[in-house]
């Protein structure tokens, strides 16, 4: 401070100072802008999905008075009774003025075809109902559901809406009597796929995803970790291991549909495994996630400080003991994170599963690894392709379910990392 002018170097430094700080400010601004833009896109994504999907968690029901006519239950097997006729009879008795054939058809249309299964279940559980009159809430047709959720515009000309004026009048009458209600859509979470949107649920796909990922996890984690440990700790460093390493990195970048074709050729055509099943899907996804897990595991093995290895070897631990007692526990958090990222990847994968037939329309909930199944992302793909308006909100709802699972998996990854992380 005494002689500021005598040191020319400091002058130069001071002159450059402003520029340096300006560069830093510019860089920080760029970073902040990037983060902001990313958050904006994320918000738009979530907003669009939630706003178009939240209504799918509600479902419209219509209350009808069903008379379980003993004349219908003459057969020994109660399930063969004509349940649709019971519903039709109950609707006709509610609106006796409807006589024309066409109008009757329109009237019956208001009730979901799935309602007769509901009655069947009711009788199966309680045969004593035969001969009695019951008040039952049955699910409404998807178009009624759409109307009540405001997705069908009443003001448009009759020819352009899927609910005609007469049907509107009947529904208004029913609504006036309090016989229409919207409740939580349990069916969406408990049923499999269906051609009728009001009967379509996510549970079948969820089970399919669960079985598929179970196969993937139980194969890819042990194989991936073992491969990584061998390559990193035991394998000699020579041309062969170099080639293997390069190929693993290449495999991680192979488009997933190629794995699908591979799975189709090898697992289904060559080994004759059953198509459209979680076992084949799981194997294909195992192939796909293996490189990711191997690369992540090797990286986390590499990050274990060499001093720990030396310490273990220095007191006479064998190589296996060094790896098992010291290196693996330290590398485990990174391996688990890599594995869960790979699994999240597998959970959201669609393309390879299309190739092995998991895109089939499957109504039944899969009960095991060899039952035909579909998975969540494929279900989303199937529904997004369906023409019914009601499937649109189902698509968004299914995306929300998938995202919830992804968030859960990432939360588990963070939890595991925190839990097993060893600090020093």
């Amino acid at each position, binding site marked *: 401070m005494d002689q500021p002018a005598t*040191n*020319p*170097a400091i002058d130069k430094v001071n002159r450059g100072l402003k520029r340096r700080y300006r560069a830093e400010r510019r860089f920080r601004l760029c970073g902040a802008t990037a983060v902001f833009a990313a958050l904006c896109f994320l918000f738009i994504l979530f907003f669009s999905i939630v706003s178009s999907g939240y209504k799918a968690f509600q479902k419209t029901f219509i209350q009808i008075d069903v008379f379980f006519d003993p004349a219908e239950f003459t057969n020994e097997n109660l399930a063969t009774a004509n349940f649709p006729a019971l519903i039709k009879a109950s609707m006709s008795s509610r609106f006796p003025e409807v006589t024309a054939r066409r109008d009757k058809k329109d009237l019956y249309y208001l009730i979901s075809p799935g309602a007769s299964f509901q009655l069947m279940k009711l009788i199966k559980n309680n045969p004593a109902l035969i001969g009695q009159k019951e008040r039952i809430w049955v699910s409404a047709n998807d178009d009624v559901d759409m109307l009540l959720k405001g997705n069908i515009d009443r003001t448009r000309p009759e020819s352009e809406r899927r609910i005609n004026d007469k049907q509107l009048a009947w529904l208004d009458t029913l609504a006036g009597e309090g016989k229409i209600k919207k409740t939580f859509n349990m069916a969406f979470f408990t049923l499999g796929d269906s051609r009728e949107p009001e009967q379509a649920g996510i549970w079948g796909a969820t089970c399919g995803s669960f079985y598929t990922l179970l196969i993937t996890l139980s194969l890819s984690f042990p194989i991936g970790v073992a491969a990584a440990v061998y390559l990193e700790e035991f394998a000699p*460093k020579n041309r062969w291991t170099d080639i293997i390493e390069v190929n693993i990195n290449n495999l991680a970048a192979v488009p997933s549909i190629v794995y699908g074709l591979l799975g189709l050729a090898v697992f289904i055509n060559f080994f004759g495994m059953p198509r459209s099943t979680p076992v084949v899907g799981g194997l294909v996804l195992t192939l796909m996630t293996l490189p990711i897990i191997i690369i992540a595991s090797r990286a986390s093995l590499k990050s274990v*400080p060499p*001093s*720990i*290895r*030396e*310490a*273990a*070897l*220095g*007191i*006479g*631990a*064998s190589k296996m*003991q060094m790896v098992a*007692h*010291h290196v693996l526990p*330290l590398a485990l958090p990174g391996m688990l994170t890599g594995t869960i990222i790979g699994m999240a990847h597998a959970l959201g994968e669609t393309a390879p599963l299309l190739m092995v037939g998991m895109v089939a329309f499957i109504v039944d909930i899969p009960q095991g690894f060899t039952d035909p199944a579909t998975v969540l992302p494929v279900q989303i793909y199937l529904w997004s392709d369906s023409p019914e308006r009601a499937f649109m909100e189902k698509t968004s709802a299914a995306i929300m379910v998938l995202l919830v699972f992804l968030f859960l998996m990432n939360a588990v990854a963070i939890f595991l990392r925190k839990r097993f992380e*060893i*600090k*020093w």
Partner: protein
Amino acid sequence: MESLFQTAESGILATAPKEKILSEVTSKTLHKARETVGDPFVENPRMTCREVNVYYGEKKAINNVNIDIARHEVIAMIGPSGCGKSTFLRCLNRMNDTIEGCRVTGDIRLDGMDIHDRNVDVVPLRARVGMVFQKPNPFPKSIFDNVAYGPKIHGLVQNKSELEEIVEASLKKAGLWEEAKDRLNQPGTGLSGGQQQRLCIARAIAVSPEVILMDEPCSALDPIATAKIEELIAELCEHYSIVIVTHSMQQAARVSQRTAYFHLGDLIEVGKTDRIFTNPRHQLTEDYITGRFG
């Protein structure tokens, strides 16, 4: 501007003579056969090393070293950076095996047993020749587990009380018992640097080695912690042979009975520590200990 240049120039001038000396020394010694001077051999040695050469790939890091390590002595290895003293130390328990591309030739014997023999397993060898590293490297486990690990994997104990005895004895020998006895279950990594290094020494002596190799054990420690480790070394040499690599000549003078001076992969001079520091016989040794280079 001018003043800056001047300082730079004068800086060069200041270093010039030293570099000159170094280059002279190197050129002179390159032509001269590097016979080890002094007394590298002792009677009834714990370890003997004959014609030891170490190669890293094509590069020769250790050139024809012959030396004995006596029983119950502290031998210090000194020399400028990169002279191969750590590399040589790591030959003694075959830690160099773990380095890719490293090759050791020659004859190293522990109590007459060739450690490179086909029938010699490296695991028990490392139990007999323990090692303490430059940076304290306790396992990220509890203090107890750190010390107990060696006895456990070698099956030295039958039950828990024996294990506890060994841990206590080792920590006492390493002078850490008083500080650590109330926190045996806390992580070893939570100790201070000096305590961590003593923990590493306790870990090494828990498997009852015959030789302890120390690779600059105090270079990461402050003077007080260093003094403690040095005291400990003096006590430990009653039971063990200790080979210590150090950069500090004062430390070598304080702790060791014999000193070996390495230079560019050659063992230049070995002798009683007092004699080496007062009356070095080789020109290079004298240059080094008088601080002319290194």
